[in-house]
């Protein structure tokens, strides 16, 4: 019986069972009986009545209790049977599958065999043709030889005949004298002729040289018919997105034929720019049973060439085409000292973290709440260079990190940086500082020391201030509002203000039209304050010396204001339409120190008068 028949039998069994079950239940209906059985012997498992002698020593149950017990027993048997039915059903469907697989396998084998035999037959007929051709050639050669021999004989015969005729003719000559003259050469010729040996041997053997046909390869093919074919080459899958890490690759391949494979062997080597020659030491391999594996201990941001072979008892398949996979890059490294922020934006700068170039960078940022949860992470993708300007909400704290991206996917997150949009954060651009200006370790205090450095010890570059002992700061390149403060001593002669990035490095802050600043000069009689731009200052007297000065810049309103922050006293405002981005600038005109306070937001008295 086949699977289908088996199946239908099972169905019948189920039906029969339910019928039986129904029948059993009827058995528990009290049958009117003259003896009125009112008990059930659990030992003999029959209905009886109390006081029955036959069951005196047996355990008796009331019909009700007995009925319940029997019902339980029956349902247990029923469930066992149901389980068996399920098992049988599974088995039946399994059989079905196997049935189909056998058909398929048979089909394959048939195909295989046909192909094989066709090959053998082809080879045999080729050999046959070749052999026949060889024999044919031999025959032709022999016939040619014989023919030429025949010709030769014919010629000799003709020559002999001619000679005899001429001898006969001479013999017939009447003239004795003429005859004597002609006869001697003729006799000579005849003698000569008859002395020559006639080669009557056959130049050609009558046997045919039959070479033994090399049928070894045909034999081999016949032998291998019974064997499994070696597998065909597998196919490497392209790299799956986000499956790689910076040191590992998840490699997949497929087998597109129905070959049997015992195991696969995956090979890989690092693709490097310098050497195109592949040495055996460069190639690593791994034996794998599945059609995928994870290769580890790789270099980040590197391309690897991978190929795979399949092996079974017959042999090894040809190698697959080579696929190129790439590991993801190492995470970048944010440079906190070069990041700046304000109330509504931040400029983040980082180092790539990889020696070779990457495709792009992704910047991720999210608000850091008090509880650090329920905040969505926003991303900026396809950043081409190692810096990014990101727009943010004011009065918040953010956690920002960066990833490097190549075709293998994104790297791990870099170490994050904390950014606060509660004020203007910036740092000093050390490479613009005049050589005589030194900065503290935290980069916020600058000193013009008393020692006179000899000019030869000072190194100037295109970006350093050469005369004014000054330095520029960095600011978010957005036309918004900024506020910072400086702290000085009573005697510090300083300049503080803003300048365009390309302000002349060999002129003094405030002395040109690319910078604006407040200046403090100490004279013998009093403290003098100037507000310089283009070399000009209004005449302003200040009675209480400002030692903590607030600087407020508003691009939209076109103002630069200075305040005595301790008194909240307004000192002066420049009104100007600023054409380019500005940089905070600071200078010391005489030995002294100036401390910068950043991270502040403009106080209310500054923004809402």
């Amino acid at each position, binding site marked *: 019986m086949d699977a289908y028949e088996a199946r239908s039998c099972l169905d019948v069994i189920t039906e029969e069972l339910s019928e039986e079950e129904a029948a059993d239940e009827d058995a528990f209906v009290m049958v009117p009986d003259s003896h009125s059985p009112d008990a059930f012997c659990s030992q003999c498992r029959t209905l009886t009545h109390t006081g029955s002698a036959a069951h005196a020593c047996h355990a008796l149950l009331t019909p009700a209790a007995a009925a319940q017990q029997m019902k339980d027993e029956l349902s247990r048997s029923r469930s066992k049977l149901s389980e068996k039915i399920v098992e049988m059903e599974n088995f039946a469907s399994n059989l079905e599958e196997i049935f189909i697989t056998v058909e398929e396998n048979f089909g394959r084998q048939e195909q295989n065999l046909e192909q094989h035999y066709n090959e053998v037959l082809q080879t045999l007929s080729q050999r046959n043709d070749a052999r026949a051709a060889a024999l044919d050639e031999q025959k032709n050669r022999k016939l040619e030889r014989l023919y030429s021999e025949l010709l030769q004989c014919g010629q000799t015969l003709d020559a002999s005949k001619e000679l005899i005729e001429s001898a006969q003719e001479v013999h017939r000559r009447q003239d004795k004298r003429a005859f004597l003259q002609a006869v001697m050469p003729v006799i000579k010729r005849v003698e000569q002729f008859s002395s020559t040996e006639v080669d009557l041997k056959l130049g050609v053997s009558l046997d045919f040289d039959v070479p033994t046909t090399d049928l070894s390869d045909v034999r081999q093919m016949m032998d291998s018919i019974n064997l499994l074919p070696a597998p065909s080459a597998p196919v490497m899958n392209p790299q799956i997105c986000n499956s790689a890490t910076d040191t590992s690759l998840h490699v997949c391949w497929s087998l597109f034929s129905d070959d049997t494979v015992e195991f696969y062997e995956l090979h890989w080597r690092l693709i490097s720019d310098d050497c195109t020659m592949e040495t055996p030491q460069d190639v690593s391999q791994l034996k794998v049973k599945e059609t995928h594996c994870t290769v580890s201990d790789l270099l980040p941001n590197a391309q690897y060439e991978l190929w795979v072979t399949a092996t079974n008892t017959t042999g090894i398949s040809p190698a697959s085409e080579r696929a190129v996979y790439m590991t993801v890059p190492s995470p970048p490294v944010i440079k906190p000292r070069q990041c700046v922020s304000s109330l509504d934006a931040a400029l983040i700068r980082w180092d790539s973290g990889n020696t070779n170039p990457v495709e792009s960078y992704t910047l991720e940022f999210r608000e850091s709440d008090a509880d650090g949860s329920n905040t969505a992470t926003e991303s900026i993708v396809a950043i081409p260079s190692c810096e990014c300007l990101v727009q943010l909400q004011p009065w918040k704290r953010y956690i920002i990190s960066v990833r490097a991206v190549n075709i293998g996917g994104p790297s791990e997150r870099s170490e994050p940086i904390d950014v606060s949009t509660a004020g203007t954060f910036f740092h000093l651009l050390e490479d613009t500082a005049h050589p005589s200006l030194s900065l503290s370790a935290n980069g916020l205090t600058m000193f013009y020391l008393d020692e006179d450095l000899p000019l030869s010890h000072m190194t100037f570059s295109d970006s350093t201030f050469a005369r004014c002992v000054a330095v520029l700061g960095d600011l978010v390149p957005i036309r918004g509002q900024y506020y910072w403060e400086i702290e000085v001593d009573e005697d510090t002669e300083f300049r503080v203000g803003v300048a365009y990035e390309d302000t002349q490095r060999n002129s003094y802050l405030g002395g040109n039209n690319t910078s604006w600043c407040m200046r403090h000069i100490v004279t013998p009689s*009093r403290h003098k304050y100037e507000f310089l731009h283009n070399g000009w200052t*209004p*005449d*302003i*007297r*200040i*009675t*209480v010396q400002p030692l903590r000065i607030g600087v407020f810049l508003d691009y939209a309103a076109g103002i630069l204001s200075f305040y*005595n922050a301790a*008194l*909240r*006293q*307004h*000192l*002066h405002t420049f009104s100007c339409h600023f054409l380019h981005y500005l940089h905070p600038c600071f200078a010391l005109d005489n030995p002294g120190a100036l401390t910068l306070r950043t991270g502040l937001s403009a106080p*209310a*008295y500054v923004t*809402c*008068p």
Partner: protein
Amino acid sequence: MALTQVSSNKCCNGYQKVFEHDSSELKCKMKFAIYLPPKAESSKCPVLYWLSGLTCTEQNFITKAGSQQAASEHGIIVVAPDTSPRGCNIEGEDESWDFGTGAGFYVNATQEPWKTNYRMYSYVTEELPRLINSNFPADPEKMSISGHSMGGHGALICALKNPGKYKSVSAFAPICNPIQCAWGQKAFSGYLGPDKSTWELYDATVLAESYSGPELDILIDQGRDDQFLSSSQLLPDNLIAACSKKKIPVVFRLQQGYDHSYYFIFSFINDHIKHHAKYLNA
């Protein structure tokens, strides 16, 4: 006290009005100008008192200084009284332009025949604020004071003599040291008599030297081409020196090319109102 409206003109979305009343300090009818910004229609506003200079009335400031725009924007009431009692028929009151009518010098005169009427100091610091606070939507806690020339002197002395009463003070070309200049000497000897110690009570420089009270923030604008500066009537250096010594915060701006006129006031009145707004609207 009954107020009669003399005029009302809409200006910068608010109203420039002039009122007249019977002054108890000055014992005569007095006019004052008051600008009510748009904000005054719905809520109380702070008040800036403006004291005008020699020969001025309540009209000069409101017609020439252009203060209404800034006052409207910052929601500040501006009150500009007259510069002296009028129509009192005191002998000699009209003899000079720098003494008597139009030259009250914001003092309380002690000498006859001036002492009955010439009590501008009390008028400005007491009667007028009471009047304004009870008749207009003024915030009684928020007052500032400013003025020009003689009025600058008046603003400075009112602030220095009443620590904490005014949130801020500013002045245009003020007479900083009256006891040292011709104007002051003439006026004080007439109103206060020969005893120079009584003059010191109304001298900003002297008052600054002995000031003690809440911190002030004084803004002073002075035209460089002001003829009275060069004729030593104004003497700002003396005030600056006194304030530097006593650490009273002053920002004194010498404005190149400007003179003593209302064109000068017009040019910088916005800065002054902004200066006052910082403290009045805080």
